[in-house]
Every structure is written in structure tokens, then in C-alpha cells.
């Protein structure tokens, strides 16, 4: 019962955070000068009078507070509004891009955490050995490289020089399989995924790795690890035990990591020409397409905030100590 109360309270907090976020973003975007019609005005594609008419049609001539009331009201009914730039419901614009982004981000996050935990455990287990010192520094190096730079280097090597992988994009517009494995359903997307995922994993892996390593070093000194050794558990079983216990901080971090991944996603998407939500967001900011920019911002933020909530709740499941 207490758990449900706790969960409900956390959920309420999350909801408040989301609402605040929404207002914050709305205000932020309205502060940016110009609207989508001004850009067409500036390139001389739209005369001033026509621009004014467009602003009327799109409701941009109304006072800000009225626009906000409309926006918030629509939002309550699940309507994210209409994109100025695409003149379609925002959800139709954002949804496919969000899916594309998830296709790229999910493997990045999952592989980063799995590899980070495995390697971090290994390094922590080897604490004090020279190989651990070198390994820890090696793990720091890709973390220090800008992700777009890694992407460029990977592209130069594996796409331009060796030609093993495509230059960018998510699919080849017209892909004609030549051999049996190329006919596998996701082959085309998969081969487009390799390089961006590699670049993403290289940079995202270091954090869970270092956290896992530190946690493991601390866990290793716990009495129950000595006791596990005394019980004659095999080294593998001991390491598994340590990994399982040390995983909790990584779990907490994973929610933050998804946030970072969302934030850094745009660089990967630019370098690898991935049709995802990060590029959509940056473009919609440049195009002053507020409804889309707000929705993308909000979706990302909501994902992070909600994940935080889920992680908090999952914590209870993974760490029975705080389950009450």
C-alpha cells in the first residue's frame, strides 16, 4: 500500500515537472524572434501583405496568452497542434521521426549499458592490476572524443575508404537485394545502423562503464563478497553477484543517459543523415515551427522524466532493501 502511495506521489511530481516544462518551452519559443512566415518574407518569396494574411490564417496575429490558452486546451485533448511548416497535425510529423530515432537510440543505449556493465565489472574486478589502469584510460578516450568527430572518422574509414557501409540515411531508396542475407527483412536498415550505433556506443559506453566500475570496487569490499568467496562460489558466480549488486547506480544513471542520448542524438543524425527527431527539432527551431519544436522538446523531456520515474519505481524491485 505504501508503495502505491509513494508511486502516486512520484507520478504527481512527474506530472508537475512536465507541465512546468511545457510552460517553460512555450515561453522560450515565443521569445525567439520571428515566426515561420518571416523566413519566407526574408527570402523574398512572400510579400509582406501575404505574410500578414498567413499569420492571420495560422492564428499568429492573436495575443500570446490567447495562443497559449488554445495550445494548452488542445494539448489536454491530446492534440499537439498543427505544424506551421508542414501544415499537418504535429503528431503526424513527429511520430515517424520519433520511431526512426528510437530505432537508432535503442541499440545505442542498450549496447552501451550492456557493454558498459560487462566491461566495467571486468575492470572493477581487476582493480589494481595494470590492465585495469590501462583499460580505464582506454575507456575514457572515446568519451573525450566529440561524437560527431567519431562519426566523421568512422564514415571516412568504413564508408568512404573501405565502402563496407552506406554513407548515411536509414534506408537505401531503392535497394535490390543480391544475396540471400540481403533479403532478410531488416538487412537494409541494419547495415545503415552499424556506423551510427558504433559511434553512439563508443561515446555513451564510458559513463555506465565508469559507474559500474566504481560501484563494483565498492561492492567488492562489502562483507557479503568475502562471504561469497568463503562459501566457495566460483569466480564467475562471485562476479555475477558483484555485477548484480553494483548495477543499481547504472540503472539510476540510465534514465539520465537516455536524456543525454536524446540531446546528443542530433549530432549523430546530422553526421549520418538519419531522418530522426533530433534533426527535426533543430530544423523546426530554425524554421520557427514552434508546434513541432515544442512537441519534439516535450516528447524528449517527457521520455527522460518518465524514465526517471520508472527507474525510481524499478529500483524498489531490483533492490529489495527499499521495497517497503
Amino acid at each position: 500500500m505504501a508503495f502505491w502511495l509513494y508511486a502516486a506521489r512520484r507520478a504527481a511530481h512527474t506530472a508537475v515537472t512536465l507541465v512546468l516544462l511545457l510552460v517553460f518551452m512555450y515561453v522560450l519559443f515565443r521569445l525567439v524572434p520571428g515566426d515561420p512566415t518571416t523566413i519566407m518574407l526574408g527570402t523574398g518569396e512572400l510579400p509582406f501583405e501575404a505574410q500578414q494574411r498567413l499569420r492571420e490564417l495560422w492564428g499568429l496575429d492573436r495575443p500570446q496568452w490567447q495562443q497559449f490558452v488554445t495550445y494548452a486546451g488542445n494539448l489536454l485533448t491530446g492534440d499537439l497542434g498543427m505544424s506551421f511548416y508542414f501544415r499537418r497535425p504535429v503528431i503526424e510529423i513527429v511520430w515517424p521521426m520519433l520511431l526512426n530515432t528510437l530505432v537508432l537510440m535503442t541499440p545505442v543505449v542498450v549496447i552501451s549499458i550492456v557493454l558498459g556493465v560487462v566491461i566495467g565489472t571486468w575492470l572493477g574486478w581487476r582493480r589494481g592490476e595494470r590492465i585495469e589502469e590501462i583499460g580505464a584510460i582506454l575507456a575514457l578516450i572515446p568519451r573525450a572524443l566529440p561524437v560527431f568527430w567519431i562519426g566523421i572518422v568512422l564514415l571516412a574509414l568504413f564508408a568512404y575508404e573501405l565502402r563496407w557501409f552506406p554513407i548515411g540515411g536509414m534506408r537505401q531508396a531503392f535497394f535490390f537485394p543480391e544475396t540471400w542475407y540481403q533479403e532478410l527483412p531488416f538487412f537494409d536498415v541494419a547495415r545503415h545502423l552499424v556506423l551510427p550505433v558504433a559511434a553512439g556506443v563508443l561515446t555513451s559506453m564510458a559513463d555506465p562503464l565508469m559507474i559500474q566500475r566504481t560501484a563494483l570496487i565498492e561492492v567488492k569490499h562489502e562483507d557479503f563478497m568475502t562471504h561469497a568467496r568463503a562459501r566457495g562460489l566460483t569466480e564467475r558466480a562471485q562476479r555475477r553477484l558483484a555485477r548484480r549488486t553494483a548495477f543499481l547506480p547504472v540503472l539510476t544513471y540510465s534514465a539520465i543517459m537516455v536524456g543525454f542520448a536524446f540531446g546528443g542524438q542530433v549530432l549523430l543524425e546530422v553526421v549520418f543523415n538519419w531522418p530522426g527527431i533530433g534533426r527535426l527539432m533543430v530544423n523546426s527551431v530554425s524554421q520557427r515551427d514552434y508546434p513541432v519544436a515544442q512537441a519534439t522538446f516535450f516528447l524528449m523531456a517527457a521520455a527522460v522524466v518518465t524514465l526517471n520515474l520508472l527507474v525510481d519505481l524499478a529500483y524498489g524491485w531490483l533492490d529489495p532493501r527499499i521495497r517497503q
Partner: protein
Amino acid sequence: MLALDDVSIIYAARSGPVQAVSGVTLHLPVGGSLGLVGESGCGKSTLALAALSLLPPEARLSSGAVRLEGQDLATLPEAKLRRLRWTRMAYVPQSAQNALVPVHSLRRQFRDTAAAHGMRSAAADERAAALFQRVELDPAILDRFPHELSGGMRQRAMIALALLFGPSLLVADEPTTGLDVIVQRQVIDLLRDLRTEDGLALLFISHDIGVVAELCSHVAVLYAGKVMESGATDRVFSLPNHPYTMGLQRAFPDIRHPERSIVSIAGHPPRLSAPPQGCPFAPRCPFAQPLCHNTVPSLVAGPDGRAVACHFAADAEALRDRARDPALWDAAA
């Protein structure tokens, strides 16, 4: 059963090597019981870990040998050692709270231990239930997590876990610390029953000489990593030959002499990174003479199977008399 011959252990610390245990020799016969007493930091726990060959990586056996049933543990390959652990020798650590895996249920911990030695889960469950009854715990508790149990229940579960394979040696490191008196009593009774009924050899570590006196036939008094005195428990505690034992004895309430006031030995144990030149206890010893500060006394075996490391062991009778005065101990500081 268990024999420690001239064991010395050195810790590699940042400031330099630290001799935590030096030249300790102990013997625990099959079914026997040996208590190790001393203040915290005297090397008891290190010795216990050494007996199980569980020293942390930064510690190393610099001399001597630990033999279990005649086998030198140091020469055994890790795989053999692993199989020896828990089947032949089990361990009840200081705090069951920290020693049980917090994220696993007790059943899981029984099963994992069993699996490490090739016992199936079903068999482990059956054995765990039986052992729980043996330690007077409800087998339903097996599905609980450590934090859901009281301290006494945890400690008993810990003992039950130690008995999983019916080991012949049990090393118990302060198993009663942090428990309230009634629970302490239950645990001690349990250990005594195990010893007498199951013929378990017990290496019992405590700072509480009362408990040791109750559980162990033999005792070794440790100070600064060295044995100060050893022998049959009743003899050592009724007629201590070493001033440290005398002080230690005065530091605990004695049911036989409730009128005695409790003293504390003034001062602190020496820093092991820079041990004193002579007798390690000399700086705190109310009877210390110049000789004590210069020369390390060696452990001399006595006629009745006792041994003592004191230059003035011969004068023990007189010292015991003087030690009755509580003021003496406070003045030494």
C-alpha cells in the same frame, strides 16, 4: 584439524607495509574449540580470514603456513581451495546484515552456495529447510530477503547457511556483536549445541572473554598481532599470566565477582606500521620495566600446556595481586 604455524601477515598500505599478524601459532584439534580474544584491531579478524585463506588482495602471508587437515592451504590451487571452502570449513562473519547478499532471497543464497559445490536446487531447498529447523527458524523465512529479518534471525540463518554441507570447522568472527543480550544468548547456545552435538571444530573470535570462556575449551589472547597468552580457557582466565590478559579480564563484568569494578586499559594499541621496539604491550602495561621497552619477550610454553609472552611471567602470582587495584590501570596512561 586446523593448524597455524608461525603465521605472519603483512598488509600493503599506502604509507608502507603493515605487519598485522606476526608469528602466530595456533592449533585446533578435530572437534575442539579455540577462542581468539583481543581488542579490535589486534589482528583477530585477519587471522580468521587467514585460517580460511580468504585474505584480501592487499594482505599477504609473509611467513608460516595454514594447514587444514594437514594440507597447506597456501600451496593448494584456487580451484581445490574453493571446493574445500564451505564443505570442510565454514564461516560465520561479524555482521550477518552485511554478509548476506542484500539483493537475493535466503533461498537463492542457499541455492547459489549449493550450486557452487554441485548440489541441486531441490536438494539445497530440502537441506535448507532442515537446517532452518535445526536453528529454530521457520523454513518459510527462506523466501525472505535479509533486510526483512531481525538481527537474531539473520545470524541464525547465517549459521544455518554455514552448516549447509556439514563442515568440520566453523570459523565464527564475533557472531554476537551488535545483538541484544537475549539474542546473543540464543546464538551462543546454538553454537554450543552444534559443537557438542555435531562435533564441529570451532574457531571463535571475540573481544568478549565471557563468551569465549563459555564456548571454548582453549583460548589465545592476541595483542598487536601477537599471541600474548594461550592455554585452556578456564586456566587462562582464572589465573592469567600476562598483564594484558589481566587487564582484559578486568575490562568485562564477571558474574563470579560482580563486586569488581570494571576498568579500561588506558592508551591505545600501537600503530602496526611502527611497532614499539620491545614488548608491544609495554607502553600500556602498568608493570612495564625498562627491559620490556627494549626486548621483545618470546612466547614461552609452560608446563600445563599454557604459553605466555612476558618477561615477568614468573612473577605472575604477584602481578595478579597488584592488578586487582582498579587505580593501577588508569594510572598507567
